[in-house]
């Protein structure tokens, strides 16, 4: 599933980060920020208007991602 579809506080692991355009600077930056296969992620909070942006915990850092950005990240739930 996509990170943008993940519910709050459900632990998940990243499978891939997809390129939407070629090259895709946003996906590139996501990888530079540590969004790579095997990393654990969690949705910490959703923005007050339409749940956008989302607050994502990865490693020891929290990033605010817009839904279009989070949709580039494919994840798998632990359970």
């Amino acid at each position, binding site marked *: 599933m996509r990170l943008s579809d993940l519910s709050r506080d459900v632990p998940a692991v990243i499978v891939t980060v997809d390129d939407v*355009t070629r090259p895709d600077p946003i996906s590139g930056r996501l990888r530079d920020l540590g969004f790579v296969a095997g990393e654990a992620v969690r949705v910490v909070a959703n923005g007050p208007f339409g749940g*956008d*942006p989302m607050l994502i915990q990865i490693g*020891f*850092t929290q990033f605010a991602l817009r839904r279009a950005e989070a949709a580039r990240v494919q994840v798998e739930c632990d359970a």
Partner: protein
Amino acid sequence: MDTLRVALVGNPNCGKTALFNQLTGSRQKVANYAGVTVERKEGRFVAGSGRLVQVLDLPGAYSLAATSPDEAVTRDVCMGRFEGEARPDLLVCVADATNLRLHLRFVLELQQLGLPMVLTLNMVDAARRRGIVIDRERLQQMLGVPVVETVAVRRGGARELVERLDGVLPPVPVALQDGSDLHARVVRLLSDCVSMPRRIARFDAAADRVLLHPVWGLAILSVVMFLMFQAVFSWAEPLMDGIEAAMAGLGVAVGQWLPDGLLRSLVVDGVIAGAGGVLVFLPQILILFLFILTLEESGYLPRAAFLLDRLMVGAGLTGRAFIPLLSSFACAIPGIMATRSIQDPRERLATIMVAPLMTCSARLPVYALLIGAFIPQRSVGGLFNLQGLVMFGLYALGIVSAALVAYVMKYFKRDHTEQSLLMELPSYRLPHLRDLAIGLWERGSIFVRRVGTIILALTVLLWFLSSFPAPPDGHLGDAIDYSFAGRIGHWLEFVFAPVGFNWQICVALIPGLAAREVAVASLATVYALSGDGVETALAPIIAAQWTLPTALSLLAWYVYAPQCMSTLAVIRRETNSWKTVGLAAGYLFGLAYLASFVTYQLARGLGL
């Protein structure tokens, strides 16, 4: 005496600037990098052996694959590619010891550049409190780079780094093989050298549950903003009165000392009055920046951006534009200066363009005069006051127009690639007094020095236009009527007749270009009034001489018109482009004329 040039490099939020302040204290120079509006901060200190160390504080970056002008500067300086900027002798890589998983990746990237480097683990005190243990020897060995520990916010917290910089330069680190997986290496380094309990600071999680809550978070944000405004207007007032009185006193004192004539008029009416008109906003600007810096340092600002991003995106802006736009309600100058926190140049430009539409405090005297003179004091629906409603409507008109302008700009943009948020929410921190003081000093001196000189020059020019040529003896009427400004005013009447402005308004608009509230004083001059209580004396005169459509038209004009040279000057400074200034002034004047025209003709059509 030998000199060492070092550059501080690191991720945003690694405490780099606090470390820079700790190292160099107040011996800093702040300017822009040549050709771009990215802030360049340089400082120096003398180490124990007498070695002079020049420190360049490079903009924070996540990667050498730059995605913003800030990051491009950091990349180019580190690679020695930045024109006019010598390549540093040594890189000081700053990493937040509590966030090594993110920060070490950039360190590994920098290691490939072939420059000697030192890795600084900053905020080791916070790391220890969280139970993070770092095997420094091991890390040093695996990286092949000397590692020191610092606590940038504690006195003497950079001693180890200073001693290291005073010693022999470390060797250039061995570069990794091309295409090696940096992320995998970071994971290995972490598993070999660092042991940390797997959680973030408990305080952050608890605070964010409230501060980012859809209802509570927004409520708290509103309270914070309300307090900020309250402070900007109420705390600043006595200080502003003081500055006004002091400048007036200075004018009188200097006036007595100078002989009557041109020189006195230039110094007193031009220079001192002009400088006073600018300086009077300094208290508001400093208080506003005190709030902004505190919110920024504490980590709250990105959270406000998180809460409001969706709303702002709807209007073609970004959550990060919120604080600059909010500041613009006090004054567009600090607002436009605060857009530096927006990394994306397109979003920054859009924010700068709409900032003048926020109703700044200088419009209040004009609104107060016109509303008081023309809008009856009547209650509406038994609850509201008509004058108050009109005032509120003018504020709302500014906000709605800003949203529309930003929205339209989105469609005219040449570059339609997706804009990203990708914003790190750092840990909450207690703001450090020294960092606040240095930040305030920087903002204050930029305002006084740069903007002050431009505004002063324009004020003197306006003084010249309003004073020359002097009327001949026996001239009836006011001197300003005979001057260039007066002639231009009469000529402008032709242009402004369709929006209902008479020649007196046109004349007043010219000196009013220096600052909006000056228009009230110049209207008084044109109607040959002077002294205190100008507003109370002027109101009945214009109420008798102007029609209601004219007054409404002037109100509409003031919602849009860029009647403020200082704003245009600061746009020029912040964008480095006269074209942007022209575009901003052009569209604002266009909208102002259109709005006045529609208002005037509608009001006349309705028989008001």
